């Protein structure tokens, strides 16, 4: 079946702003939006986009589909019988066509020290019970696709907001029984660009392709931040 799709094009050497261009693609039952984009790239090799795994695990194919952030490889063309408009992820600077500059996102991620911090030098493995694993496991499923940042109006309004994925990752390590780094992560979460910049719009959790529920993590972070504050009032 032939299908018309619109793609946002931007060439930094010629254009002052992105413009929609329409293309014809052949869409079958199993054609993903990423497949459609790759078909277009066959017709017009100047189209730039990011992708790698085609199976919703590398997190690189995020785009706006009719204004909603989605993974191109996890979205089917058949679900858009009317119009299908593909544009680059919102709230990020557009480098070219569908490619955005993800560096603000990556900086926020690294700011929360997303790794196990543990002073113990023992060579023994750190044991963890299934119950301890369950505490953070859901938050460990993030694939860093950045869809939640494009869904977040607070990040759009204030790019300094460390955002859903970074706070989720902080929470993921803070809840890990093997980790001792909570004290060094809390200043980031407590800051004005930390958890309190979130107004619980909740759209981040709607668009998350891995059901990580970043909005829950951010609001758990608010509870942690509040108790951190109360404890600090009573300790010299």
């Amino acid at each position: 079946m032939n299908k018309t799709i619109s793609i946002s094009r931007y060439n930094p050497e010629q254009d002052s702003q992105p413009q929609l261009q329409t293309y014809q693609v052949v869409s079958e039952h199993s054609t993903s939006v990423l497949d459609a984009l790759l078909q277009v790239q066959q017709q017009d090799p100047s189209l730039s986009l990011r992708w790698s795994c085609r199976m919703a695990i590398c997190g690189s194919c995020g785009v706006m589909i009719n204004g909603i952030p989605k993974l191109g490889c996890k979205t089917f063309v058949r679900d858009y019988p009317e119009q299908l408009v593909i544009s680059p992820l919102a709230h990020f600077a557009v480098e070219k066509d569908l490619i955005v500059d993800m560096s603000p996102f990556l900086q926020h991620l690294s700011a929360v020290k997303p790794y196990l911090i543990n002073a113990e030098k023992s060579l023994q493995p750190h044991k963890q019970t299934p119950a301890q694993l369950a505490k953070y496991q859901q938050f460990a499923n993030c694939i860093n696709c950045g869809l939640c940042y494009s869904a977040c109006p607070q990040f759009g309004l204030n790019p300094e907001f460390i955002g859903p994925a970074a706070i989720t990752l902080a929470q993921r390590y803070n809840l890990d029984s093997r980790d001792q780094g909570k004290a060094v992560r809390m200043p980031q979460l407590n800051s004005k660009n930390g958890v309190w910049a979130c107004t619980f719009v909740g759209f981040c959790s709607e668009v998350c392709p891995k059901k990580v529920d970043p909005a829950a993590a951010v609001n758990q972070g608010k509870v942690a931040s509040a108790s951190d504050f109360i404890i600090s009032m009573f300790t010299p």
Partner: protein
Amino acid sequence: MPDPKSASTAYKPVMSRHWWLQHRYFQLYMLREATVLPLLFFIICLLYGLFSLSQGEVQWQSWLTFMATPWVVLLNLLAFSASLYHAKTFFELFPRVMPLAPAALMIVAQWLATFIVAAGLILLLGGWL
């Protein structure tokens, strides 16, 4: 900070002031935030009532008449439904932030608790008056 190499040529999108009209999810979010407006009206009514009570019978009667005016009743009905809507969004969020029991169970428990407390208060006040 964006990548300095690309900073000069990249297109920086600006967020429209009407971003929240973009789709239903944002509209519902704004609706939730707007529930505060009719609730504010309700609180002012209550404070005005307390003040009237302290001013003696005549003022109290005039407050009662004021509260029975159709537009006041209408606004307060709006405040009531707004608070129910806000409660619904809050009760759905709570089990995600404090996963103490299965979410569905916690939602039902919160509504039950609300109705029991509300019914208790109505009975108590009814008996007192």
